[in-house]
């Protein structure tokens, strides 16, 4: 499940993406939260919260009772150093430290595909959500017209990406009803161009993020934005 090289903790990845380590950054998070229309005080859990940028946003801008979990001790420690007292903890999305029906909302940003176990992660999200609770997911998906390209240990989310139909089936199988699907694939291009301008080329970026100038994953990663799309989905727990 965990990439040994932990790309999301690399200074290069953080330099290109900022604290919100995913396409779209906090702008897409705001869009997701607005679609969910949570009211002040509701409990919302961020699964795969990293250093807590979304948790901070939910608490301070939306007055939500937010918390976050992530498998990365480094990311959680970094978030707590910056904002002591932020309700972040190291935990596994497949075994959440919360009771049944504790949450009004769950958000997963570029997390579901990276877990390596979509069924268990969605099943846990279902368990901790109240009936009618909302789930916001933004993630990579495989374009239906392409064959699955070679995966990379650098980006575990590519390994777990499936096409739109399978994503929707997985959500429904776990007990959710899809309320909204938005294609946000342009955000991948936007991110790719930002990285190229900052590092000179995608290859240079991946070699740095990987820590290996002869990174063998570079070719598949360079083409990633062509084979994959990015989506925002809002689903409701039945």
């Amino acid at each position, binding site marked *: 499940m965990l990439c040994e090289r932990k790309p999301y903790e690399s200074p290069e990845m953080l330099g290109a993406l900022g604290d919100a380590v995913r396409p779209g950054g906090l702008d897409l998070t705001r869009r997701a939260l607005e679609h969910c229309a949570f009211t002040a005080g509701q409990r919302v859990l961020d699964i795969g919260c990293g250093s807590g940028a979304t948790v901070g946003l939910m608490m301070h801008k939306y007055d939500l009772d937010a918390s976050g979990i992530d498998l990365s001790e480094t990311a959680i420690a970094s978030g707590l150093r910056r904002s002591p007292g932020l309700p972040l903890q190291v935990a596994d999305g497949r075994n959440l430290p919360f009771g049944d029906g504790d949450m009004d909302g769950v958000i997963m940003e570029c997390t579901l595909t990276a877990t390596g176990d979509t069924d268990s992660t969605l099943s846990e999200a279902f368990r901790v959500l109240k009936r009618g609770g909302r789930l916001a997911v933004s993630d990579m998906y495989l374009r239906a017209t392409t064959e699955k390209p070679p995966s990379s240990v650098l980006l575990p989310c590519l390994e777990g990406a499936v096409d739109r139909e399978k994503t929707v089936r997985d959500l429904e199988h776990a007990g959710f009803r899809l309320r909204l699907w938005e294609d946000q694939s342009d955000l991948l*291009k*936007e991110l*790719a*161009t*930002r990285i*190229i*301008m900052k590092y*000179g*080329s*995608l290859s240079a970026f991946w070699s740095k993020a990987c820590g290996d100038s002869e990174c063998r994953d570079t070719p598949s990663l360079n083409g990633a*934005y*062509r084979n994959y799309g990015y989506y925002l989905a809002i689903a409701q727990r039945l």
Partner: protein
Amino acid sequence: MGELTCVKCKVALVETKTELRYLGRSMEGKALRCPKCGQVCFSEELVKGTIHEVEMTLEDK
């Protein structure tokens, strides 16, 4: 590459952050600019490397 000078203003170009726009997107990069008239000079290396890669990305090539 030696110091480049603006043909019009006869002053040395300086490296500055420059906003580039292409296909409705804007991005930021470093380029040599004349501090007096604002004329920008892109090196061949930048055009054939970074800018070409951005172009290919935005055009889905």
